[in-house]
């Protein structure tokens, strides 16, 4: 009998994709619960008992100062040690959209040397606009990321104004590449690289990067929203294409739950 995989979905302060992220993890088989950041800070033991931590999308603190920045600091100051222990225990973290911004600014990603250091950023789209549009993604087959196992291509919505991924420098970009930490890239509908071309790469991200993971592949962040494609009817062309009833985004969560069942 497989263990029950427990997932904690962070809420509070303007996070707003917590309900659907919880639903997605439940449908993937996890025992998923939304937990307010303050409750988690007051009782970090909750984190210790869980296997998966999700930092959902939203507008934490209104994106004021810079997207994800204030929440990143708050997590670092109030939950830094428990999160470090969570990672050391080999557990899984996903950050989606604003959650990815938080992880990057906190330094949970790319987590090169096991330290919270900001090596990359997510900033204003080249268009300087918030946009909601569906994008094509190509997953890197050489990535150790457990969340994208078995996924080659994926179509998901992006909904952000600050999604342009920028590494500190060439060395960081190379290191990300060498480690297989670049997990998903924006691409054209036929799978060819977007090479920065709008709207395929919707924000001007360096190297078309849409999501990265830590060297272990257990910590993953991405700008597009897998939790927003759980039913085929979420897809923008479901009325003209025949699609499986389950939305393709759900596989991301299934992968995590299966990994946790097996490994944790």
């Amino acid at each position, binding site marked *: 009998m497989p263990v029950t995989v427990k997932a904690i979905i962070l809420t509070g302060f303007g996070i*707003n994709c917590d309900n659907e992220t919880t639903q997605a993890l439940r*449908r993937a088989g996890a025992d998923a619960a939304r937990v307010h950041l303050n409750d988690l800070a007051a009782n970090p033991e909750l984190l210790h008992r869980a296997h998966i931590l999700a930092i959902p999308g939203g507008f934490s603190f209104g994106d*004021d100062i810079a997207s994800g920045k*204030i929440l990143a600091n708050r997590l670092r100051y109030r939950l830094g040690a428990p999160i470090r222990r969570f990672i050391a225990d080999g557990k899984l973290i996903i950050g989606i959209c604003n959650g990815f911004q938080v992880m990057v600014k906190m330094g949970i990603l790319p987590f090169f040397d096991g330290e919270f250091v900001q090596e990359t950023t997510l900033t204003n789209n080249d268009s*300087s606009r918030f946009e909601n549009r569906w994008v094509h993604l190509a997953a890197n087959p050489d990535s150790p990321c457990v969340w994208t196992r078995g996924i080659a291509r994926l179509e998901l919505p992006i909904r952000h104004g600050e999604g342009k991924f*920028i590494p500190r420098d060439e060395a960081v970009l190379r290191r990300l590449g060498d480690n297989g930490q670049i997990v998903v890239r924006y691409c054209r509908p036929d799978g060819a690289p977007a090479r920065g071309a709008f709207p395929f790469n919707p924000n001007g991200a360096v190297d078309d990067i849409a999501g990265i993971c830590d060297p272990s592949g257990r910590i993953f962040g991405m700008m597009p929203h897998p939790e927003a494609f759980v*039913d085929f009817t979420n897809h923008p062309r479901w*009325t003209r294409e025949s699609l499986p009833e389950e939305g393709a985004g759900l596989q991301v969560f299934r992968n995590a739950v299966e990994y946790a069942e097996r490994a944790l």
Partner: protein
Amino acid sequence: MADRIEVAILADRPDPAGQALRARLHEDLGITVADVRVIDVYAIHAALTPEELERVRVELFTDPIIQESAVNRSIARHYDFIIEVGFRPGVTDNVGRSSVEGIQDTLGRALAPGETVFKSRQYAVRGATRATCEAIARRALANDLIEQWVVNSAEEVAALRGGSLLGLPIVTERSEAVVHEVDLEIPDDALVAMSRDRMLALDLREMQAIQAYYRDPGVRAQREKAGLPPRPTDIELEILAQTWSEHCKHKIFNALIRYTDPDGNTHEIDSLFKTYVKATTEIVGKRVDWLMSVFHDNAGIIRFDENHLFALKAETHNSPSALDPYGGAMTGIVGVNRDILGAGMGCRCIFNTDVFCFASPFYDGEIPERLLHPRRVLRGVHAGVKDGGNQSGIPDINGAIVFHDRFLGKPLVFCGTGGLIPAVVAGRPSHIKQALPGDRIVMTGGRIGKDGIHGATFSSEELHEGSPATAVQIGDPITQKKMADFLMEARDFGLYNCITDNGAGGLSSSVGEMAQKPGGAVVHLDRAPLKYAGLAPWEIFLSEAQERMTLAVPPDKIEAFLDLARRREVEATVLGEFTDSGFLECFYEGRRIASLSMDFLHNGVPKMRLEAELAPAPPRPDIRVARADYTDDLKAVLASLNVCSKESFVRMYDHEVLAQSVLKEFQGVCHDGPGDAGVIKPVPDSWKGLAVACGICPKYSDLDAYAMMACAIDEAVRNLIAVGARMGTIAGLDNFCWPDPVQSEKTPDGRHKLAQLVRCCQALHEVCVAYDIPLISGKDSMKNDYKIGDTKISIPPTVLFTAVAVMDDVRRAVSMDVKRPGDLVYIVGETRAELGGSEWYAVLGETGGAAPQLHPRTARTRYEKLHAAIAAGLVASCHDCSDGGLAVALAESAFAGGLGMRLDLCPMGVGHDGVALFSESQSRFVVTVAPDRAAAFEAALAGAGAVRLGEVTNDDRFVIQGSAGVLVNATITELKDAWQRTLRW
């Protein structure tokens, strides 16, 4: 004094915000500058040590990858002038508020009371003169009502040695916390003058009714006993003015109207609301079984499924949006969200809708005093709704942007919200609520400032010279989001008995209304949390500061309620308690300052008596334009403002948060065809859904107010039918926006405008009864005029009709894009010569012709048959024929599907090709059907006016034949480009 941290993108990196601004200056103002760089400035008005400052600069304010920053030093380089824009004192500063939280986190200590951060922004401009920079500041960057700005040269900045360019916006103006008595024993003209000078917006009869109340010996005795003077206190007068405002009491809709109909017969209408609106719901309510709560709550509530109820409400925020488009529109959207949060025991917001009306953004005439250019209004309103909705995590799923010259006088900003609630909450039915005597009055959410004082009375007047800047507020979506999350938890724990929002009229309105059932309330105004010191007691009670809800919390739950609020970092304050005394009483520092009879407060307003008579309509000859080729006409209609694509605006709304999206605003092979109705499936693990659509037709108002209303209802309904909804499941919402319809010196055509309102209400009643649509909520805004000096601009009478339908299975929903080559193309519905007000005539500059007439009984039968065909899976695509007529609907369906069409309109039997192409007859659809289902489809639609016009082709040619040969011959790429180009911003 304050320390200033300046933050900029590293000089060797592109600055997208600066680049976007540079492009906008060129596009909107025709100003070309060499370069603009944006610098964020945080003025830290707090005692931080140099080490602490450095710490927050590095850890909080600066992105180490792409930014640079400095403390008390200007970091702009290579510029001619810096424009700095910051808020005026007391204006909501969301970034400043978040910065305080960030600083406290970073330093691990709280800032002292009064310590704060002020956010401002610098634009370092190269290649422009001082005069140009001043024009940029005034015309693009700052709104003088809420913002201050300054332009400094590089030398001037250097001379400041890192000092502030702008003054700190600290609120220094203080009202004394004293209560004044007001003498009402004055002549009538002085009463009228007092109403105007104090912005009470009450007329003479209403002022006299108040005068009479205070003369009543019984009232005098009660006041003496309560320790109050015989004369009214200022706060009492303000409470009465707010409660009796047109905005809150809907006096025109409840007036006794002497109406002379077009045949010259005169009769009395006792309340348009009761006669036409409420009566509709009473009649239809006997035929449908899903109405739960209508008219008496913040929103109408219907049943969604066995376990869930659905609430719907739409509001307008026109006057504030005219003054400050961004802040006005944002408070509009977050305000209507609170209506839903305060509906029943508190619903979770699941979608927004937005409909805007503006003058042309390409308007090149004079802009009257105090008005903003329509382009700036459009950009500001859109940005406000975008930020308000996106930051709240509520998807925008349907809307429209409508253009008409006379919206120059006042833009219309309709914001709607739908919400869901479990049918049973904490063991009680969730649509019923009631405050009990003894329940604590709790205010939660934001704090009170001078923002929005007199909003309720202000929106009950036309825009004039004295319109107050304090009527403008900026929303704070994150404070509201925190509050909403907290209230959902408190609701599920059963911690309160009643909830309502603080909107127009603030606490005065929310407490006053909630106190009606228990029969009284006691409020201690000195206990209310303030943004800054120095508010008079009446200002505290009347302030419309945003993001606040009022609750009735029973004494045994108050500790649990306050504790949860603390843990969620949401402010909650006990201000008093509900009573059964029959009086609304206010105290300040222990002293009673107001005591008003609940009965007089809510029922004392005298009934208005008004006259209505339609002015004779000028003759409108119908000029039929006939051409050999209509291709250019079609392109021009596609490119016209009311038809063209609004995608660049809609893309900026989050329309998929909550992961319930089924049919999006833009559809088809490239996700860029215009959808008819938004469809969502709001409950996980259920295929049941909601379809939401809007109808709005101000273009018909001058021709025929009855037709304007009928067409708006039909537009919303056929949008729902087009996606697969069923008659009998549709609920409606009416939002009236009218120019002043009260005959007076300044409104010499008031009788006519009121008669238009009567006609409109008659249409509302007759069509909704024929369609079985109960009206579950609505709102009216009755003073949409601009008058300064001799310039008067009145909006065309406008009604937004929002319609929502519960769908049994969203998997049966149909989109508007054609699907496969070889599919057959049909028009469903009759086409008549109804070109009055049409987009084609607008393009041609023709003003003649008749408005479309609705035939609701025929339409209803057609809708039922079409629904049956869709439910049976016979329909590949369905698109409603609306603005621009048949030709536009055909073109949109074709290019959305990326396929051509070959069509012949002769089978329609319309004599005139222009009519066939562009007439805007109601209740029509373009439908495509796979060939193997054509027979079944035609059988299902027998007698409903389905005519086969041709087929979908596997190329990009769009060709229409008519009686005079080929009428239209174009590629779908050309047509799509024409449709997209106008507002590709």
